[in-house]
């Protein structure tokens, strides 16, 4: 730079060109091949290798060994041995110290993990760097402290672990979901067999290295990559005492049905179709930021995404104008670029689903607006999309799209907003935007959702319970309620 640009004359268009700011892929130290983590060793599974693809380039990233049903059996046996052996014999405070080590290990390898996550998942590096990885570390840190304080969890003086836990997690927050599952299970004294998602197994296997480096006893955590069949074998395995699943409501239903009559514990964190409700007294610019964050964070691959915008009629036009203007500034493209706001859709399959579901919006008479942002010429990308004129009967108002597609509905009164917000089989989350405190609290109690954000959206913290009402699942993650999902309270003959 040799000269300072002159101040633009008032009224002239500003040219804000971004220089590319790519994160280095080398920091991820991606290997050609990853193996599963079973009984303290990295071993080849008997399943067929899978290839994990970088969704931003459609190029193969690494091959990953997968588990067979026999491997699942070996892992459950190893987890049982660890549970009945060293893990249960260990003083609770020592158990907690392992979790502290893991929290530190994640923090120490944070930059590497963020790069691996972004390459494997397609999410923007700024999100994996600032949200996924630090929150994963925080979950271990928080639960570490619980290990020797379970008597204070509100479940009686001496709550006991459940035993061996089978956990199946989705591809939208691969490392973070692994942390949400493993940390409370271990803090409560259980052992774990975890299956990461087929398209995003890498960070869970880097986490396995961190577990091994922390000296975690063999078999306490086993990580078995694979597709749905591995998950099925795991959740149906008779040696499992509890199943924890995060994913689609459809698969959740199948698991609940499969476990019926077995007496095994189950928690489900499933889909959502959250209403984000904007009242006319809301700070509209702030609300627009929250709407954008609510639906375009992580390309909308968020079960609690604010995918239905309910805006009060008197400000609907103003909000929509501001919203389109703001969305037009979002930068879509290379997830590894630190300026990127919207990254790649995780898979071709998901891109197709988003495309098909949004097409129903056109067919059913909603008005589509698409961000004018340029799309890269390769990779799985879907531009930020807003449907207005949406009615409650349309599929885009009912079905979880799990992509960067916002459906806008309007309301006149708070009662109408509540009725529309609750008019869904889901009940995971909701947002309320208003300057009036009593309206926030009144709406919060009227909304049938497990998380209500007021004048903010998509906030997550290990201390705050997260989970759904109705067909968004049952059980909570985070806080004391989350701990309860992995403990048996000693409540006598009637419990």
């Amino acid at each position: 730079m040799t000269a300072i640009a002159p101040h633009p004359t008032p009224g002239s268009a500003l040219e804000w060109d971004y220089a590319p700011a790519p994160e280095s892929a080398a920091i991820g130290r991606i290997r050609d091949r990853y193996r599963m983590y079973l009984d303290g060793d990295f071993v080849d599974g008997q399943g067929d290798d899978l290839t994990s693809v970088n969704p931003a380039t459609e190029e193969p990233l690494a091959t990953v060994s997968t588990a067979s049903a026999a491997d699942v059996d070996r892992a459950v046996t190893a987890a049982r041995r660890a549970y009945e052996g060293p893990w249960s014999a260990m003083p609770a405070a020592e158990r907690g110290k392992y979790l502290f080590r893991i929290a530190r290990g994640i923090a120490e390898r944070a930059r590497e993990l963020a790069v691996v996550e972004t390459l494997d998942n397609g999410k923007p590096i700024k999100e994996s760097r600032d949200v996924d990885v630090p929150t994963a570390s925080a979950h271990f840190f928080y639960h570490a402290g619980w290990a020797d304080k379970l008597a204070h969890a509100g479940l009686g003086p001496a709550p006991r672990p459940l035993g061996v836990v089978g956990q199946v997690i989705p591809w939208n927050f691969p490392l973070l979901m692994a942390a949400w599952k493993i940390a409370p299970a271990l803090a409560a004294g259980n052992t774990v067999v975890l299956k990461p998602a087929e398209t995003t197994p890498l960070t869970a296997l880097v986490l396995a290295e961190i577990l091994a480096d922390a000296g975690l006893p063999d078999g306490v955590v086993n990580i078995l990559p694979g597709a749905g069949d591995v998950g099925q074998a795991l959740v149906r395995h008779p040696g499992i005492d509890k199943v924890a699943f995060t994913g689609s409501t459809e698969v959740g239903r199948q698991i609940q049905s499969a476990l019926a009559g077995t007496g095994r514990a189950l928690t489900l964190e499933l889909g959502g179709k959250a209403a984000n409700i904007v009242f006319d007294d809301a700070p509209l610019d702030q609300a627009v930021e929250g709407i954008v964050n609510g639906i375009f964070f992580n390309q909308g691959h968020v079960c609690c995404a604010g995918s239905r915008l309910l805006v009060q009629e008197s400000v609907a036009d103003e909000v929509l104008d501001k919203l389109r203007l703001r969305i037009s500034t979002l930068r879509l493209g290379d997830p590894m670029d630190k300026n990127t706001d919207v990254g790649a859709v995780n898979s071709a399959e998901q891109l197709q689903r988003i495309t098909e579901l949004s097409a129903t919006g056109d067919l059913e008479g909603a008005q589509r607006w698409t961000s004018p942002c340029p799309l890269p010429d390769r990779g799985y990308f879907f531009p930020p999309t807003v449907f207005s004129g949406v009615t409650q009967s349309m599929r885009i108002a009912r079905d979880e799209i799990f992509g960067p597609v916002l459906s806008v509905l309007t309301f006149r009164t708070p009662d109408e907003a509540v009725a529309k917000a609750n008019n869904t089989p889901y009940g995971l989350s909701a947002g309320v935007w208003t300057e009036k405190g009593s309206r926030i609290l009144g709406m919060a109690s009227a909304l049938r959702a497990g998380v209500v954000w007021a004048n903010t959206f998509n906030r997550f913290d290990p201390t705050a319970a997260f989970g759904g009402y109705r067909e968004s699942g049952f059980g909570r993650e985070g806080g004391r309620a989350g701990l309860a999902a992995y403990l048996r309270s000693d409540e006598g003959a009637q419990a």
Partner: protein
Amino acid sequence: MSQQRLPVAKTYKLFVGGAFPRSESGRTYPVRGPGGEFLANVARASRKDARDAVVAARKAFRGWAGTTAYNRGQVVYRIAEMLEGRRAQFVDLLVTGDGADPAAAGAAVDAAVDRIVHFAGWTDKLAAVWGSANPVAGPYFSFSVPEPTGVVAALAPPDDALLGLVSVVAPIIASGNTVVVLAAPDHPLPAIALAEVLATSDLPGGVVNILTGDPAEIAPHLAAHGDVDALDLTGAGAELRADLERAAAGTVKRVHVPTGSDWTAPPGTARLRAFLEVKTVWHPTGAVSLTGGGGY
């Protein structure tokens, strides 16, 4: 080399506001080992030093209480990491200073590290365990949250120079209080060594202030000090205790008088709860029932 090297002896000073000043009074007193051998001259804090320490603790309070519970937990955990790294130094101090056998000294240092870890794990659970959403009989959302009391003046136990001190200090700071602690007068060296641990961890200066000297001389000033919010009388002998409690009444200080002092036992929660206030907040909800019904 047959000639024995002469070790460099350390000057033991106070720990106030994150710095290591000598006593403003210039006074020291000799500390001796179990066999009566000279170990070090230690600063003998004055009333003015105590007041400086309270000023430092008050100055640090707003920032420390205002950190997130998660951050506070990480900082306290960091103290444990730093103490673990200096394990040998503390074992040596307990052996030469207290005459402990090396195995017992090692166990005491290990227990001190683990105690800090234990309280690090409490920072972000206090509100969940001792706070509440209050189901009041009216259209209000009411919740109660624990908050730190403020500046705590503490007397460390005279008989357990490291584990006892750590067991007193850790719960006070875990919840966001700041502390002025008087070290065990006859065994002050581990306390000042702990100050070096604190100074090299991520703890902001002034959160923990450590004074050495004669508790009988300094404690009454702290007990009567208008900017001290609470007293921990763990190390106060019977002859001091009633007077200190009486002095505390002048500004209605919270006073913690422990009932037991087995530092190897599980720590319990009394020390955590002793220096917590509870704040209750009310706000109208605009609707009384879960089904809504107007008036949002």
